[in-house]
């Protein structure tokens, strides 16, 4: 058998190099895709950071007529007086058995990090954009990749989010929040102003670390009364997704503070969750007695 001539070999090598070049270029340009997919959490609460000031803590669950609520620490050192007063108002209403109005129960958009209370979310990779979908009222946040905040933006419920990849993390920077009928950064009603600035870092973490973080969160914040049809895949032993976030708002907080929200792979189907028609009282485990007619009046 004749062996390949050196010139022929060089030609083959050139061809192979040319074939490989677009793949390598694509790899360098390709974003981190393994964040994509559907993720779930087990509680509404935010996790305390490993160090430094963290979110307002709960002082414990209080049962009330079959339901329960977390009493918030209105003396948290991160709260300025106006914020502490808002948290106290929320505590007082809940103690009185009155449901505190929130973006969640008023079917309004939720700002980050409050939106991490939604127990199932999808992270989708688009062209030049990341989309974060939340399984409560079909909420969608848009994160423009490798972009800048506009010099003059219009404040919005979700704010203006820009992102980039950095050392294996997706970093999302959000400003430009509007202050609507309710403006809260956590389940305790800690308020925010138009100066709110949130930085989120999404990173994959090992299964054991994700499981430990979620168990710690349940111990700190208590289990949820319902899972909103969300569920973690109990058999999945791959990585979890953890977002470390930092909140700054000098109008309401004495200092920047941080926290985490840890997700694991979702084990439940993505379902419709329509706030406008939801009559279910999750804490009482029953439907509200909405008046009904046997036939339409017109």
């Amino acid at each position: 058998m004749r062996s390949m001539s050196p010139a022929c070999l060089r030609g083959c090598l050139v061809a192979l190099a040319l074939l490989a070049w677009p793949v390598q270029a694509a790899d360098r340009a390709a974003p981190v895709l393994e964040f994509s997919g559907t993720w779930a959490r087990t509680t509404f609460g935010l996790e305390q950071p490993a160090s430094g000031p963290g979110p307002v803590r709960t002082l414990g669950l209080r049962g009330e007529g079959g339901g329960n609520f977390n009493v918030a620490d209105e003396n948290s050192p991160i709260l300025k007086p106006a914020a502490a007063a808002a948290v106290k108002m929320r505590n007082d209403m809940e103690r009185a058995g009155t449901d505190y109005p929130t973006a969640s129960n008023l079917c309004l958009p939720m700002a980050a990090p409050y939106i991490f209370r939604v127990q199932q979310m999808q992270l989708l990779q688009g062209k030049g954009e990341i989309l974060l979908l939340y399984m409560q009222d079909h909420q969608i946040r848009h994160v423009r990749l490798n972009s800048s905040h506009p010099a003059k933006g219009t404040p919005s419920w979700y704010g203006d989010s820009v992102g980039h990849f950095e050392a294996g993390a997706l970093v999302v920077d959000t400003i430009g929040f509007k202050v609507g009928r309710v403006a809260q950064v956590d389940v305790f009603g800690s308020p925010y102003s138009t100066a709110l600035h949130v930085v989120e870092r999404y990173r994959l973490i090992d299964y054991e670390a994700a499981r430990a973080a979620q168990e710690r969160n349940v111990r700190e914040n208590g289990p949820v009364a319902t899972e909103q049809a969300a569920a973690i895949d109990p058999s999945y032993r791959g990585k979890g997704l953890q977002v470390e976030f930092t909140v700054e708002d000098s109008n309401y907080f004495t200092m920047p503070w941080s926290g985490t929200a840890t997700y694991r792979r979702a084990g439940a189907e993505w379902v419709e969750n329509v706030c406008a028609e939801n009559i279910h009282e999750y804490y009482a485990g029953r439907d509200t007695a909405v008046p009904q007619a046997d036939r339409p009046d017109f």
Partner: protein
Amino acid sequence: MPKLHIANFSFAAALLLAAMPAAGANAIPDLSGVWGRNTIDYTAPDSGKGPLKNISGSRTVMVGDYNDQMLKPWAAAIVKRNGEIARTGEAFPTAHNQCWPEPPPYILGNQELQVLQGKDHISLMYSHGSQHRTVRLNANHPAKITPSWYGDSIGHYEGDTLVVDTVGVAVAPLSSLDRYGTPHTEALHVIERYRMVEQEPAKTEPRATGGFRGEDDAIDRSYKGKVLRVDFTVEDPGAFTMPWSGVVVYSRAKGIFIEDVCAENIHDYVTGKDAAVPTAKSTRISDGG
């Protein structure tokens, strides 16, 4: 140095050509991006039965042609009732203005649509109320479907076209398929065909079919590339005497995806003004006492 013979280059070229995918084979049409409309009407299909027409004579008064032969009597009665309400100057309740999800094809009236093409599903996101439909690619409808607001959507590519097939749309108090409140039953079956087409010579939406202006115009008027056309067909033997079709054409949207929060929206798109909702200088949450 030995010279490279032309045969060596030919061999290398042959390797390259063999490895390149055949042109068009397995190519997925790129429909992704943010698309905008500035009207909520459907236009007539190239052939066959089209959607209901507005017989009020005014784009601001929603009176669907309740004498259209495609409507079964009970459906015609609802369209007529809605038209009578509209003629009084009132707006009849719809899923759109009551902040409920909108099934296809009604949802195609949203100002903006974002298409995200994944490996095994397509995400269709809409600007009004932050709505989201998932289209499972190359899948089948389940044998037993639980009716839902958006129904069960499956899709596949046929050449340059994404074909989406939807069944299982629940019947709700405000179910409607168009701006006239035309109803449907659980037998509803909608087929949508998405493809890129050349832009027609620039023309604004005809006033008769409505058309938002100024800051409500979602379209990038400087964009001259291909646009997204959706041909859809509606079948529902419970409500219609025959299938009917319509067309929606989107162009590239301008700016950042619109945040349109239905629960707080006070904007009247017909008049281009905000409703005079009472406002308070400061917030005061009830102290429960």
